[in-house]
């Protein structure tokens, strides 16, 4: 392409963008006029007058919409961070099993990855909720001396109680994401040359020590970006909470839209919440990445 063509095509792209945004703003204004609500956020301090089954901080139905939204945001954060940790542990184990020498484990993990990745997440969440938890006998399914209990009431562990909604979401998101993380880990491990494996083996280092001291440090730069994108996916997928009745930010937003009709304001709030959440995740990962790169004294 010559210079003129370039300028022309960029000009074209600009026009298309501006038109699309114009159409959207037009639709928005028409909608706002039609509903006769106008655009404002004053309703946000009115009492929400709905109950929330799950709240990290104190909450009652006389609290404001703003507080309900914040509780929802915290609920989202709670399920995202715990799923993220569980998915990482699980994914790392499966990823190692997939690349390891044990062919039975390799076959199992390959099957796991395939099955999990070939079925929709919504289906998996429903499975964990209805079959995994609600399907259990009402008293108990599994327990270790009252320290660890799984029943249709959820999970109880050392006085910490997790609702069946939270648990189903935690399981569903973690297991789903772990299959993808396993592939990221596998890719990272495969990016380290065969010679590095042969070198540590020839020195008598065990497979475990070699992985830990030689392979993983070299695989990390290839793993971190993939991991970040899986974490961001997990955060976005957490909005499927609504399917199992867990009150995350999306579900609470949905309730508020039904009650107040403030769809546009609520979508803006939702948008900002997720932007904040994902910025939090990607910035943390960027920091981790920087620490790794800065601690590296070689190139």
């Amino acid at each position: 392409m010559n210079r003129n063509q370039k300028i022309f095509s960029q000009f074209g792209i600009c026009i298309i963008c501006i038109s699309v945004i114009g159409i959207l703003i037009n639709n928005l204004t028409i909608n706002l006029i039609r509903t006769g609500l106008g655009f404002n956020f004053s309703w946000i301090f009115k009492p929400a007058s709905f109950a929330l089954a799950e709240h990290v901080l104190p909450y009652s139905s006389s609290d404001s919409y703003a507080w309900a939204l914040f509780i929802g945001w915290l609920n989202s954060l709670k399920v995202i961070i715990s799923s993220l940790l569980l998915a990482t542990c699980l994914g790392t184990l499966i990823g190692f099993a997939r690349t390891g020498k044990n062919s039975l484990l390799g076959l199992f993990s390959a099957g796991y990855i395939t099955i999990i990745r070939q079925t929709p997440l919504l289906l998996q969440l429903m499975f964990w909720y209805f079959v995994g938890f609600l399907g259990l006998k009402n008293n108990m399914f599994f327990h270790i001396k009252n320290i660890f209990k799984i029943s249709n009431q959820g999970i109880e562990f050392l006085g910490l109680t997790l609702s069946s909604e939270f648990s189903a979401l935690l399981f569903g998101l973690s297991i789903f994401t772990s299959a993808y993380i396993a592939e990221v880990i596998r890719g990272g491990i495969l990016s380290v040359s065969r010679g590095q494996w042969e070198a540590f083996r020839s020195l008598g280092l065990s497979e475990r020590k070699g992985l830990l001291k030689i392979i993983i440090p070299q695989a990390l730069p290839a793993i971190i970006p993939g991991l970040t994108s899986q974490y961001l996916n997990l955060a976005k997928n957490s909005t499927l909470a609504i399917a199992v009745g867990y009150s995350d930010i999306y579900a609470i937003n949905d309730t508020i839209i039904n009650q107040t009709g403030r769809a546009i304001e609520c979508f803006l709030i939702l948008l900002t919440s997720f932007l904040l959440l994902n910025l939090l995740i990607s910035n943390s990962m960027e920091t981790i990445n920087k620490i790794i790169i800065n601690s590296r004294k070689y190139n």
Partner: protein
Amino acid sequence: MKQPIVIAKNLTKSYTKGLRALDNVSLTVNQGKVLVVMGPSGSGKSTLIRTFNGLETFDRGELNVLGIKIDSTHDERQIQRIRRRVGMVFQQFNLFPHLSILENITLAPINVQKRRQIDAEEYAMYLLNQMGIDSHANKYPSQLSGGEQQRVAIARALALKPELLLFDEPTSALDPERINEVLDAIRRLAEQGMTMVVVTHEVGFAKDVSDQVLFMDSGKVIEKSTPDIFFSNARHERSRKFLNQLDKHS
């Protein structure tokens, strides 16, 4: 009486069906001796010496390294015992890029032999000094020339005080002007009585250092001779052809 360090009997291996990378290879390496392995590319030299420390499995035959027996079942425990007493130097150096030169060398002594860090470092410095590169101890592999990296790799292999050293074309990845510094280091080890198996195409070096030359082709041992005979009057047509070709290239 010098005892055998490596006894291989009828080693046979195929990566792909019908193609033998090793075909009934038998050999003995006695203590303090240097066996040089030569042969065209793809003749099975790497495969052979990699079976000696269990980096490669084999399908049939027996192997006895330092009195430890392994067979086609590839018993991990036995192999681990062998690896603690056998060092290996690779064509591509395979230094650990994220560790300093000193850390590269002390890794195995500290983690495998559970030696104290100061002791391991002291011995590493001694080895680096022997290799003439002690001034690079705190650098990283990428900051060194190929010849220096390969000498670090030799020091790393020596750190476990091995009773057998394996070299797989240690100078094939080096610039011509860097080859001699590495060959000289290996020569000195031979003078000190180290038992070694060396895969190389360096004829002059092989003449100096070897007690026996093994010539392979298509996974088979074609000829096993002393260097005097092999390099001046090889018994087999194929050996002579191979040596002629080497001459033309150098």
